[in-house]
């Protein structure tokens, strides 16, 4: 513990040095406690995340997350390069959802520079964002069940659908995962009618996949026994801790930026926002399943109403781009929650300050609160239900 500013009033006097590995602690708790370091290499921490867990038997009496094992200096690099050059880096923030990261960044820059976006581009962005939401939520369901101990079977079927969506992304942007597709004032390329037909086909088949997935999993007794009542989060704590996305809505708070901010062309679509009542892991899982069904509705409407026109604002200037001095905070409803970009321009080609508001990092704030009193096995699925991607948590 070398940090000079840590006050002694904080309940944790744990060493945070990664060199200090597991050891037993004897302090004010009764009985012997076992301190276990889960991560940074652990099969179910979803990357290089570390939790220092203090156990009383199997019960968790303390849990301290440790971050930074994937701190790739995204913000510093963003300040060292031009506005456009940061776009591919945003792909690698939350590497499951490059399309929504792109969009959030594009929205922030468009706000900063007062850039208009053609209508067709707005529709294409909605289509891509909702496809990304399908992809993310499907993968999440698979990973969550993997954490409960399925031998990979649900994950395999989730990835089967993921591959179909990635095929679409690849045929549109040229890359499976790192699409780098949005530009300031529109999109990079115009989707062809064949591509749109392929999307239509995927959307039509997705409901069937969800039905099958749900029939096999949502009613499974073991899944229900493991997830119902574990990791309960109260709405008040969720709001105070800045939790966003499906996790917040699972506690019953109605806050969806697609409705609240109404960015893009979302106000034109009819869709509902599912809300949970218990705030437990099962609700978090089910809210995502229900959101996917709403996404399918949005996709149907967007594909139906897609207007003709330019995909990129002809007045948009992506190279040699120098916005006027000022600042802007742009945010969208990413699959994991509110993803925002805060930019300060000083008139130069590089942003003076480039900040990412990562949803999964902020959502992790309440990890300890949700895990206290639960068992190790629960901590694993609670973490899984938060839906973190370390590229975004550590940036």
């Amino acid at each position, binding site marked *: *513990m*070398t*940090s000079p*500013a*840590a*006050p002694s*009033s*904080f309940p*944790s006097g744990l060493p*945070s*040095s*990664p060199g200090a590995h597991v050891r037993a602690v004897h302090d004010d708790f009764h009985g012997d406690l076992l301190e276990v370091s889960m991560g940074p290499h652990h099969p179910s921490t979803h990357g290089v995340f570390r939790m220092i867990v203090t156990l009383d038997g199997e019960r968790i009496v303390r849990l301290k997350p440790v*971050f*930074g094992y994937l*701190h790739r*200096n995204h*913000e*510093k690099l963003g300040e060292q390069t031009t506005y456009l050059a940061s776009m591919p880096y945003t792909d690698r923030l939350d590497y499951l959802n490059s399309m929504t990261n792109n969009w959030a960044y594009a929205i922030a820059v468009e*706000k*900063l*520079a*007062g850039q208009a976006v053609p209508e067709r581009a707005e529709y294409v962005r909605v289509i891509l964002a909702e496809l990304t939401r399908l992809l993310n939520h499907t993968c999440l369901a698979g990973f969550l069940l993997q954490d409960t101990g399925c031998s990979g079977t649900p994950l395999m079927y989730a990835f089967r659908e993921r591959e179909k969506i990635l095929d679409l992304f690849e045929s549109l942007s040229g890359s499976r995962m790192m699409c780098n597709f949005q530009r300031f004032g529109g999109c990079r390329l115009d989707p062809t009618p064949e591509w749109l037909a392929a999307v239509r086909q995927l959307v039509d088949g997705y409901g069937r996949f969800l039905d099958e997935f749900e029939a096999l999993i949502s009613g499974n007794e073991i899944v229900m026994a493991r997830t119902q009542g574990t990791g309960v989060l109260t709405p008040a*704590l969720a*709001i*105070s*801790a*800045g*939790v*966003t996305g499906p996790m917040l809505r699972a506690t019953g*708070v109605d*806050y969806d930026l697609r409705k*609240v901010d109404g960015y893009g062309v979302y106000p034109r679509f009819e869709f509902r926002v599912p809300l949970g009542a218990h705030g437990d892991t099962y609700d978090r899982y089910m809210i995502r399943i229900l959101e996917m069904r709403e996404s399918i509705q949005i996709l149907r409407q967007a594909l139906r109403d897609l207007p003709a026109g330019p995909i990129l604002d002809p007045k948009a200037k992506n190279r040699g781009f120098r*916005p*006027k*001095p*000022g*600042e*802007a*905070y742009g*945010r969208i409803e990413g699959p994991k929650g*509110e993803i*925002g970009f*805060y930019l*300060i*321009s000083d008139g130069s080609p590089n942003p003076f*300050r480039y*900040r990412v*508001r990562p949803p999964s*990092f*902020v959502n*992790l*704030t*309440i990890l300890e609160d949700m895990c206290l009193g639960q068992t190790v096995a629960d901590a694993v699925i609670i973490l899984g239900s938060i839906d973190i991607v370390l590229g975004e948590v*550590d940036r």
Partner: protein
Amino acid sequence: MESLEQIRERLLARFPDAALTVIANPGPAGQPSLLVGSPHAASIAAFLRDDPALRLDYCSNVTGVDWPDREVVETIKRTVPPPPPAAPADPSAPPVTPKVIEEKVKRHIPGYFEVVYHLYSMALKHGPVILRTRTADRTDPASLPSLTPIWRACEFQEREVYDLFGIRFTGHPDLRRILMWDEFKDYPMRKDYVEPDDYEWEPTPHGAVLDKARRHYPAPPESR
């Protein structure tokens, strides 16, 4: 939602001795912010959270900004009074118009650290209200009040600001390094941070990289 000026008026009525300044945003985003003096920051934040008209219960984004010392060259328009007529004025002559000249003035702005909070309301679904707090200068230890007791969402984000900018938050329950390791001494997001020189030659014509190479290899190695 009320405008930021109205909020400021109400805050001043409540906290008469608070230092509150509305910082305009010159860009097209139209997101002005409210600069709050350190002593009242926590109570003002609590007021903003609990006020029934505002209910800013959700602190979305917390970030630090490092403003180094800068020289700003400002163009100031100045009206030069017409020179006093040397000869008795010819009443028939046209009146001398005052002359407007532009001159460039260098202004030194001392550096400071700034923490920006983006506040929204989940209950009333409005926002953002942007709060800023500033240190007086860039000398260490820089210290600002923590808003974690008001919004739990600030906990990790303020730790991150501490880690990367070196701003100590007084009142933060668990202020430790979060992204870098504990033995690390620098604050890498500061503008004057110099990263360790582990440069490795790479075949690129990129100017910045070549500059770095020159710094790394001060004397060119013997030619082959």
